[in-house]
């Protein structure tokens, strides 16, 4: 399909006896942020490495930009920016010098690419500090600068917020979002932190023990998320009036002509139903929804959930 940037078909990786990635069918859509969510050791990094040719594919296929990764390496890789684990930089050179080397190796898209990439991640240009003296956060930022140095169409970022403090995480989150929204990049990002992915991703893939358990858009998943009572009645206007007058309900919203959502889940629904019936409003159904995203992921991953 045209709007798929990455597609994997039955992608599998076996290390000795252990199956690290098991028949994964992933679909990363153009211009969106795809969050690959899973616990440590679930197989996130291995999937990314296979897409980038950093490790061999045991069986199955990976397509990037609609081309099979195998055999098209030279045409695909210049269009991807990636951080996998700790990026390899020369410890005795400064950040700027390190990026100049990568610019020379890969080529760039504009004359002052290094300076601009450093600006995006908030590192100083032509600073004297050498890489080995960098803090973990600065190293991570330089890694991201390196990934966006050649203005790639697709970014593959493996836990890019690792080792950053909360403010740093928020900054990185913001510019990843900006790269997608303001510059139309497609981004595949992995994380083991649910809240992080929920803030960033448009689509989410949940991976557990090498198996892709679910792939869906965040909006779809969030529909399953929330604490409320879904009430279907014949007349919402009248029902709202009664709820407000007799039960002092303020926290509710009207979904359509027959559906109300009540956010106070402690409401005595038996009493509500009775009162509505007495006022000649027929209650078609009332249903308690009590799932948070966390609960949902626990269910999907079979109990233990995601840290």
């Amino acid at each position, binding site marked *: 399909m045209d709007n798929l940037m990455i597609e994997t078909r039955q992608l599998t990786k076996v290390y000795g006896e252990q199956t690290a990635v098991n028949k994964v069918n992933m679909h990363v859509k153009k211009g969106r942020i795809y969050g690959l969510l899973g616990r440590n050791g679930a197989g996130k990094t291995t999937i990314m490495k296979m897409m980038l040719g950093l490790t061999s594919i045991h069986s199955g296929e990976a397509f990037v930009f609609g081309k099979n990764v195998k055999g098209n390496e030279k*045409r695909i890789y210049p269009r991807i920016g990636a951080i996998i684990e700790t990026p390899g930089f020369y410890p005795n050179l400064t950040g700027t010098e390190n990026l100049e080397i990568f*610019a*020379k190796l890969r080529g760039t898209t504009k004359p002052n690419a290094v300076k601009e990439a450093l600006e995006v991640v908030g590192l100083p240009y032509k600073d004297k500090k050498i890489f080995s003296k960098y803090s973990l956060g600065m190293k991570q930022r330089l890694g991201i600068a390196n990934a966006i140095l050649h*203005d790639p169409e697709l970014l593959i970022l493996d836990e890019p917020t690792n080792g950053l403090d909360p403010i740093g995480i928020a900054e990185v989150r913001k510019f990843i979002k900006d790269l997608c929204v303001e*510059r139309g990049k497609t981004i595949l990002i992995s994380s083991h932190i649910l809240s992080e992915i929920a803030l960033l991703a448009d689509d989410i893939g949940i991976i557990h023990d090498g198996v892709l358990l679910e792939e869906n858009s965040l909006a779809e998943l969030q529909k399953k998320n929330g604490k409320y009572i879904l009430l279907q009645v014949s007349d919402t206007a009248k*029902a709202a009036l009664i709820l407000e007058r007799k039960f002092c309900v303020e926290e509710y919203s009207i979904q359509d002509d027959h559906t109300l959502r009540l956010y106070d889940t402690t409401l005595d629904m038996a009493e509500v139903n009775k009162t509505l019936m007495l006022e000649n409003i027929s209650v078609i159904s009332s249903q308690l929804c009590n799932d948070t995203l966390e609960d949902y992921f626990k269910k999907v991953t079979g109990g233990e959930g995601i840290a």
Partner: protein
Amino acid sequence: MNWTLFFFFTTFLCLCLIVYLATRLCRVKEQLFFIKEGLEDIKKGNLNRRVLTRKNDMTKEICYSINEIAINDQAQVIRLRQSEQAYKRLMTSLSHDVKTPLTSLVGYLEAVQKKMVTGEEKDEYINVALDKAHYLKDFVESLFEWVKLDAKEQVFQFEICDLNELSRNILTDWIPMLEDKQFAYEIHIPEVEYNITIDSNAYRRILNNLFQNIFVHGEGNQISIRISENEEQATIIVWDNGKGISAKDLPHIFERLYQGDESRGSKGNGLGLSIVQELVSAHKGTITATSTPTTGTKFMISLPKTL
């Protein structure tokens, strides 16, 4: 003897030259192939495509120009898409967030019209209906304001004025309200002139919305505002001792129509803080919020002295 040596020497030089030119030619040929491929992709509409080039390539300038065209076109397409999306969101907003108060307003008016209530109760129903109508009017106004900001269509009138004086003026209007609601207040504004480039209406809106937010959601009884300034920027801290914002909600509070679980329903419209953020960023400033549930919330705004 000398002649033979000379002859060999020139042949060797010529050979070197031929090899050198051949490699250059090969590189150019390879580059032309990549340029062609990139251009075909761009022609098909993939404006994210870039052509990579190295510093000493002969085709460098052509590549830079191609990239520049693609980048500029891309930016334009994205701008158009963003304003299109802003209007789409407006439509969703209108249909979702107007529906609840409007339906319940209809409920009240129908009850009055069908003479289900009489006397004092009837008057009360009419008052409630009027409140809801006012709320709707405010909501629609805020919504249009927000959409204008979001689509970057708002025109600002930046002028140089004294921030301290301006703040004092705005706060003077709030004092009767604070006393009326029995809020204890503390105001620290330096007794000097501090000239800043600012749109005074926007600044008024920022403070008003923050105060409004405290009144509607805070549930506290103390409020303080502290302004401090230096050569580069002014910092405005607004604090209240209300119920605070949970860590779960805090990252979302500036999102449009995000309201914490506790405050969904009739109170507030979910646009106030989002408008504040848009206005602050129009001044190239930043706004952050920190909060401890049950003890209070602190909003910190930094505005640069000159834009």
